[in-house]
Structures are given as C-alpha cells and as structure tokens.
C-alpha cells in the first residue's frame, strides 16, 4: 500500500467503526431487541444534534485522529517535502529499527543510548509511582477515615493551591531549592551538617522529587475517594477481632481500595513516563529521560516520523505494562474508572 492511501485509510477507519456501530444499533432496533424512544426522541433534536457534534468533535478530532495520524506517520520514512508522495514514500519499519539499532539500515550494534534511556524511564516511573503511593496512602487514609470535615477541607485546599502555579515554574522552584547554591544546600552548610554543597540535581534527587510532586494529586484523589467509601465499622470490626493496625490495612483497607489504588497508580505511571517539563528542567547532566529524546526527534532533528515512532513505542509499552499489572491484580479497566 502506498503511503498516500494511508491518510485515506486513517480517515476512513474511525468512520467505518462508527458506521459499524450505527448498523448494529439499526439492526437491533429492526429486530426489536431495542425498543422505546430513540436518541433524538429522548433528547430532542437540538440537544441531540449538539451532543452528537460535540462528542464526535471531541472524540474524533481531538483524540482519535491525531493519534491515528501519529501511528501512521511512525511507519513512514523521513523525506524532503518534494519527495512526499513519490516512489520512495512507502511504509517502512526504519524508525523502529533506528530506536533499536541507532541506524535506519544496519542492525549491527544496539542503540544503547536510547534503549537505556527508555528502560530507565520505565523503571524510574515505576519507582516514582510506588514512592508516590507510599507518600499518599497515609495522607489519603487520614483524610478519608480519621480527620474531621473541616480539617479535610483545609488539607484539600493546601494540596490543591500549589497546583495553581504552572508546572514548569514548580519544576524551577525545585531547582531553586535543590541547586548546588540552592536553599537546601545553604541550610545544610549553615547548620554545619555538610562541608561542601551536595549536587542534588546531578544525583537525580531533583528529578524524582519533581516528578513525584508533579502528579501527587492524581494519586491522592483516587485513593481518598476509594478509602472514603469504606465503612469505618469494617475497620472497627477487624480491630475488634484482634487485628493489629498493619493487618487492618493489609486485609481490609487496601483490598477494598484496590480499584482506587490501581486508578491512581495508572494515572501517575502514565503521566510520569510521559512527563516533559520536570525532566527538562530538573534532569541532571547525566540523566537521560526518554521524553526529551522524543521531543528532540521532533524539534531538534526535525524527524517527525521518528518522533512519532518513539512516542508510539512509549505509549504501547506503558499501556501493555498497565494492562499486565491490572491482570495480575485481577482488576478490570472498568473497575478503576469507578
């Protein structure tokens, strides 16, 4: 298939899917499996049309089509504009080859830099997610089960208020605190605890702190919601039956909050692995996060097909990882969106 046909295919694919569903709905109604007033009869023509247009605009133009075009682009070679649509414009795996081997043609040596950055990003995202969970769980539990309503409101405000500040600015604030001549080093030096400034940023402390902080709320809220719906008497019942506090968490609270935990961890993991601002601002000179590499494919190398391929690889890996973890935890996607 020539790649110029690809665009038509990408445009047609969602329309075909929509047409398929419409056909199923039509057949269901014809055969009497679905009865009662139809969509427009229930909502009125005005609201019905608005819903239809708004949802299709949002779903198709904002989400589905850009993603599909990106996937399609990942399988195309980088060509000067004049050669686009020409005989060299055919589907290829060269962008994926480049990710693995550092060359569009040779498979002689591994692309160590990019592969390392990729796996480091995945592993670090897992660690950041785990750390985030350990940080948020006690707070979420306190807010959901122990604190009084007024205290909860205050805590929520304190949690949310810093997020009114732009993400990049928040990242720079970490630089101000953690830099070699930053606030923390000055404090430690002044207190005589260290003799020379510690390079927190070079040690990636800044990066991990910044990443953990960036998506804290997305962990807190699902946890809080899940634990809040737990009947406090279950906790009392477990205690009454002789359970020490840690067993109550292990046996009662965490199993009950599992969907919330999965939801929070999924959000934080996906966003951390795809984060750009924090790695750009807080990454040390030796740390190489994967997203800045993707960014560079687009804006430094001007190689959009390769950038698309890299982004696609990251997305696919993260989705696969999340699905695998959900399977292990015996959870369905539907449960974590409750």
């Amino acid at each position, binding site marked *: 298939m020539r790649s110029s046909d690809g665009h038509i295919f990408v445009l047609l694919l969602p329309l075909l899917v929509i047409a398929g569903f419409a056909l199923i709905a039509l057949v269901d109604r014809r055969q009497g499996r679905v009865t009662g007033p139809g969509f427009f009869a229930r909502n009125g023509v005005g609201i019905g049309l608005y819903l239809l247009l708004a949802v299709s605009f949002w779903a198709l133009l904002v989400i589905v089509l850009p993603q599909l075009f990106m996937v399609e682009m990942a399988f195309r070679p980088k060509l000067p504009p004049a050669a686009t649509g020409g005989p060299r414009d055919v589907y290829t795996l060269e962008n994926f080859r480049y990710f693995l081997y550092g060359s569009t043609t040779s498979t002689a040596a591994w692309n160590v830099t990019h592969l390392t950055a990729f796996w480091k990003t995945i592993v670090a995202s897992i660690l950041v997610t785990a750390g985030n969970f350990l940080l948020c769980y006690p707070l979420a539990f306190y807010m959901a089960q122990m604190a009084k309503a007024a205290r909860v409101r205050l805590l929520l405000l304190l949690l949310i208020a810093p997020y009114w500040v732009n993400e990049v600015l928040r990242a720079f604030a970490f630089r101000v605190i953690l830099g070699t001549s930053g606030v923390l080093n000055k404090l430690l030096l002044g207190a005589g605890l260290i003799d020379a400034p510690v390079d927190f940023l070079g040690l990636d402390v800044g990066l991990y702190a910044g990443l953990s902080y960036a998506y804290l709320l997305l962990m807190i809220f699902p946890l809080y919601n899940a634990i809040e719906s737990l009947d406090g008497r279950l906790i009392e019942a477990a205690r*009454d*039956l002789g359970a020490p506090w840690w067993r109550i968490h292990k046996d009662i609270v965490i199993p009950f909050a599992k969907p919330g935990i999965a939801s929070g961890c999924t959000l934080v993991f996906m966003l951390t692995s795809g984060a750009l601002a924090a790695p750009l601002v807080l990454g040390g000179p030796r740390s190489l996060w994967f997203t800045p590499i993707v960014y560079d494919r687009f804006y430094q190398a001007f190689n959009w097909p390769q950038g698309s391929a890299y982004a696609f690889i990251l997305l696919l890996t993260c989705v696969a990882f999340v699905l695998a973890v959900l399977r292990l935890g015996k959870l369905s996607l539907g449960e974590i969106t409750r």
Partner: protein
Amino acid sequence: MTEAVELANLTVRFGDFTAVENANLRIQAGEFFSFLGPSGCGKTTILRTISGFIDPTEGAVRIGGQDMRGVGANQRPTALIFQSLALFPMMSVADNVGYGLRVRGVAKALRDRKVDELLNVVALGDQGGKQVDELSGGQRQRVAIARALAVEPQVLLLDEPLSALDLKLRQHMRNELRAIQRRVGITFIYITHDQGEALTMSDRIAVMNQGRIEQVGDGRTVYDAPDTGFVASFVGETNAIPGRITATADGEAALETPLGVLRGRNPQTLPVGTAAQLYVRPEMLLPDPTTPENRLSATVEDHAYEGNLTHLACRAAGLRLTVLLGARDRRAPPASGASIALGFAAGDARVLPVA
C-alpha cells in the same frame, strides 16, 4: 459465680455531653444481659466502652476481674456484633468467619476445621465458599455471629443486630440467638430499644434513660415492678395517674387523684404529702370490677380490635386511659361514648415519684 463484666462508677463524656453517667453494674458469666432504652440513652456508648472503642472519662470497666484501662479493642476478650454487621465484603463467608483466627496466627488446617464447626453451629455448613453479598439478611446475621464466636470471646457484645431484619425473621433470630447462647455458654451483652426483644431473650435487663441506668432486673421484675416512672412507661404500656399521697400503710399508699382516692403499692415508701404518679398496666384495668378497692368510671372514646386482644381508649376526668380486653372476653366491647366501670387491685398498681 464470677463476674464477666463489671462497670464501676463508669462515666463517659463527649465534650459537654454526658453519654453515660455513673453506671455501676455486675454482669455474671454466662448471663444473657440486655441494655434497653430509647435511642440516645447511652446504651451503645456503654457497649463501645466495654469493647474498647471508647475510653471511660471516669470509672472503670473490668472484664473477668481485670481492669481494661489501656487494653486496646484488639486485645480484649470481647467480640462485637455490629448493628450493620460489618462483614468484610472482600472476603468469602469462610474467610470472614476465620479472620479473627487468621490474625491470631492459627494454622490453616486448624482454622478451616474451626470455621466448618462454627458454620455448622449457625446452620450455614455449606455456605462457606459464597461471597457475603450472595447471602440473605438472616444468613448474614449468622455469619456475623459465627465470626464473633470464632475468636472464643469471654463476652459477646451485640449492638441491635436484629434491627435490620423483617418482623418474622427477627422473631426467628431471637430464638436462635438464645439457643446459640445456651449452646456456647458465654456471656451475651445485648443492646436494644425493643422491649419485646429484651423481655423474651434476657436473663436480666438494664433499663437506661438519658445516660443513667434506671433499673436492673429480670424481665418480670422490670415489667411488673418498675422502680421509676420511666421504666413503667418505657417497658410496655402503662396508665399514669397523677396525684398526692394522703396516707401510707402496709407498703401501700393512697393517692388523692382527679379520679378519686386510688391505692397502689409504695415500693419507695414515699411519705404522705408527696406528689406522685400511680402507674397501672392496661391489662390490669378490668371492666366490671369485682374488687372493692380502686373503682373508677370512664368514657370509651375508641376501640381497636387486634385479633388476640382489643384496645380501648378511654377518658376519665380529662386523663387518657388505655384498657386491654383479652380475646377470652367474649362480650361485645362497649360502644364509643358509652360509660364503663373500671377497677384494679392495689397490688397491681405502683405509686412512684413524678419523673
């Protein structure tokens, strides 16, 4: 016989509010003991204090002779059955029942045997593998009982566990609870606002009102010989007739009332001149009395036929009186507006201070 639970000068305050005031009580081992009172009377607070979820403000809770101060809820030899049951929804029936044993580190084989045994005790032998939400209300009830019994508590605490069940099931579970208690032989402390439950199940009852224990005794004592006006009117129905004592003799008192001079027992030996109330049960107010003492006449205002008995609502000198006619009484009930002669024996009425 040893005490299972002793409350010594127990007071519990929440801020300015006194939930329980100076409660003193000894509950015997193996006893089925009930706390009866309206909602907000402090009975649940007492239960939660015994189980260790609330610390006494003053006084002490002793279980098996030991002061429970500083002993956490998870360390006490008690087990609580919650009003909402609080079964663990993430566990199977068997895992619920075995949970207390699991946290005590009982080996799985032993635990399984014990769980089977208990499920048989509560007639759920084949339901262990089910999820909690697959069971009916009565079955869930029994799971909660088995779960609490599994930890072999010295004292089982029950917080209105039958209130969520429908009437038939509630009556069935009353008998079942009593039977289970006899079988396992441990102390049951039962909280209820339902006097029928308290009377039918309990060895002894503590009637509570506004944080205070008003009277402790077996069902017959509490019903037939109430110590206070509150107990007389809360446990069962009663007619209260206000008046002033004009004479006392032989444990009885004569009361000057709007209905004339009436006599009743004077358990608190109230002196002449005291303002008091005379309490007499509706079933003790007899129509066409043959007794010489305590006669009065009233006007029938309404009657309600309930099958096994008939309720008469009467009025005399502005006071409302309720009369119960048994089904054995084959006479046609007097029509509304008719005048009726009533009487009661002095031994069936009690003169108590105004509440």
